[in-house]
């Protein structure tokens, strides 16, 4: 509703992978770039987000993180329950995706709020959950290694497209592990830069 009333200002075109380096992976058909996105709250300063791009084996290729962003009181009131998904998924997520030079083929996160990002990009966004968790039972899912990927309910075809490239990811890959790296990197960034 809010977006219907208020002007939509985000330009999502930057998030769309280019033809020669994006989803199709043309020319490098056997490579897959995975994006791992996490956010964390910095005491009194808002939220920061980080996006780590790796190859299919988890080797880091690029990392971006934002400065803290904090919604004001008006935004808190007007966005209501959608504030978190707007802030994390739409605002921080889009910024990070726009910023990375190496566009991922899929974005994996542990925060369901970040699934909102899928409405602003053509790149599939999935929420990784432990195969045994209840979260895994919701919606359209895809099992990779020890993780279950849950996709945005409005973009269920993402699971099918990723399923075609699933063989590139090692069976034993732990998709939750790189998210831990992102959280550590965010904590280090907060400690090093923003805590000054």
């Amino acid at each position, binding site marked *: 509703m809010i977006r219907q009333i208020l002007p939509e200002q985000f330009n999502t075109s930057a998030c769309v992978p280019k033809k020669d380096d994006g989803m199709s992976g043309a020319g490098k058909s056997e*490579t897959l770039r995975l994006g791992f996105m996490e956010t964390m709250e910095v005491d009194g300063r808002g939220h920061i987000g980080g996006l780590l791009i790796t190859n299919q084996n988890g*080797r880091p290729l690029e990392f971006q*993180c934002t400065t803290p962003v904090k919604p004001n009181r008006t935004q808190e009131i007007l966005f209501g329950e959608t504030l978190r998904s707007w802030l994390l998924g739409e605002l921080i997520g889009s910024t*990070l995706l726009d910023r990375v030079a*190496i566009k991922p083929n899929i974005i994996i996160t542990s925060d369901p709020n970040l699934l909102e990002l899928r409405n602003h990009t053509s790149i599939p966004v999935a929420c990784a959950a432990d195969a045994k968790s209840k979260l895994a039972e919701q919606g359209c899912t895809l099992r990779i290694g020890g993780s279950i990927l849950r996709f945005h309910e409005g973009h269920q075809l993402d699971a099918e497209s990723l399923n075609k490239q699933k063989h590139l990811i*090692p069976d034993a890959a732990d998709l939750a592990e790189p998210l831990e*790296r992102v959280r550590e990197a965010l904590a280090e960034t907060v400690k090093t830069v923003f805590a000054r």
Partner: protein
Amino acid sequence: MSEFDFDDDAKFADDVEFTGEPEVSASGYLDTGLEHVASGDSRPPLAESIAEAKRSTRIDVAQTGFNPALSRMPSIETQTVSLNTVLDFVPSWTARRIPMKCIGLTLPEGIEFLPPKADSTKSSDGVELKRIGPAKKVEEESDGVEKPRKVTRIKPPADALSLQDRLFYLLQPPLESWLAEQELIMPFEPFGYQYEGIAWLFSSHSALLADEMGLGKTMQTITAIRLLLRSGQARRIVLICPKPLIPNWQREFKTWAEELPVVTVEGNGQRRRMLWTMPGIPILIANYESMTRDIADIPEDEQPKFDLLVLDEAQRVKNRESRTAEAARSIKRRRSWALTGTPIENRPEELGALFEFLEVVPKGSCPDLRQLQKLAKKYILRRTKDVVMSDMPPRIDRDAELELTDAQEYAYRTAEKEGIIQLNELGDTITVQHVFELVLRLKQITNYDPFTGESAKLERLLADMEEIGASGGKAILFSQWTKTIDWLAPKLKEFNPLIYHGGVPTKQREPILAKFKEDPNAHILLMSYGTGAVGLNLQFAGYVFLFDRWWNPAIEDQAINRAHRIGVKNPVIVTRFISKNTIEERIDRVLSEKRALFAAILGDGDNNNVSLGLNATEIFGLFDLKARHKGGSKSIGPKPVEPQTDAA
């Protein structure tokens, strides 16, 4: 009421003119009676309204004598009050994108994936992306099956100050999965402590890996080098080691990282110089002598610059004044690693020299014990078997304190008495070498009496060997002297002894070791410390005899570790022969006292492997002598005088 209507009424009211007396209520308030005038749609004519106003405007006034003034009509004026008619929507709000800054890092392996004309490495509001190292080809890797296991994360080094540098290490995957993905062909799965060592080396610019012998320093170093090369952190690496160990390193590189090209500096001077200065050689191996000689011959402007310099057996640079140490320090490099199982051989100052090589202390500085402890904590990684190999069969040490036989006792006392007399007769001309010769003579007598051939140690050895031979076991015996080994061999004939010492031609050595391993009847291998202490894997031997004691327990430990090392399946029983009431006992006591002091530097867990030698004062002290100088007799301070032996 509409705005228009209201204004019209106001005009109407403005035109009202009162001619009659106003009626003032008792309360003093003016009652104009205009309510009905302003209301209703049909308005009465003006004259009637005025007349009506006169009638209704009546004032009740107390009689105060001012009636004439009160009879005048009051002057009433009306005023138009403007109302705020424009409604403003305050505050106005539109959804704006909250400005954010980004901090970015492109890793070497990612550079290949950057869009051809990507300009996103720099932006007005973003921090410039930092490129670490050169672009590197990303490996195409197959789907390796990885089992869930403990993960070893690479921690950023304490001296990495920039955020980008720290993030580089933090963002690396766990070492286990990283190595699994590289399709590494490994003889066996590294142990957990080895993963930790690899991760520590990988992130260290200055590192002294001082693991106890047999824990795999070589493997850890090679794997860390491999990761540095793969991650683009290093392109040119030089490894310096003692000449006899070069084949060992070549073999280990082939085992652990066979795809890495390794070039050894050898040949004539021109070729060696070409190899030193030729860029593009990922790994160069050179011996200490070559390094000392060749580096000095290369002009300053042609001096090679390496991303990593590794010194194996780094105790070679313990004397910071030596040409070897100076040459090692002069090599230009970004990272410095030192490998040694014996970071302290004699004095704490040796550790200071190693820290100087690592460039973590100023040149010529002499850190005190407390500073050394602090530096050791930061730059030294030392693990002992006791700590990391809890599942490794134990090493059981037992000191066999033996009484000399009568003939040995007589020979020993006589030699000692005569020797001390001779030393005293030398007066001021006495040197440590004189004392040292006496010590050697006495130690030889404790092995066996040269005249009668009696030997308490041999008796004990034969008794033990009977049991070992009967059970099909194998033993290694170490002695300081080839002469002793040759003397022992015929006496151990029933156990099919094999001899391995400096007198055996090099080509014959390998078959001897092979025979000892494969021949079930060969129960004992007689080795000299000098030849057999380093680089051999004899973990199938369950017994080690130290027939006589070496000057330095570190050498003894190296010898013992030929048998007690990774791969050993059963406990290793180590028997040290010590002749009671002899020089051997005194030496052992002095060394034990020194252990306690130096253990403090390397930690409590290092109680068995701190290597210590005797200095001149201590050697003189073995006979209650004092060193003589021209000016008279005085104690010798802890000068770096290392006794040299005539060992094979």
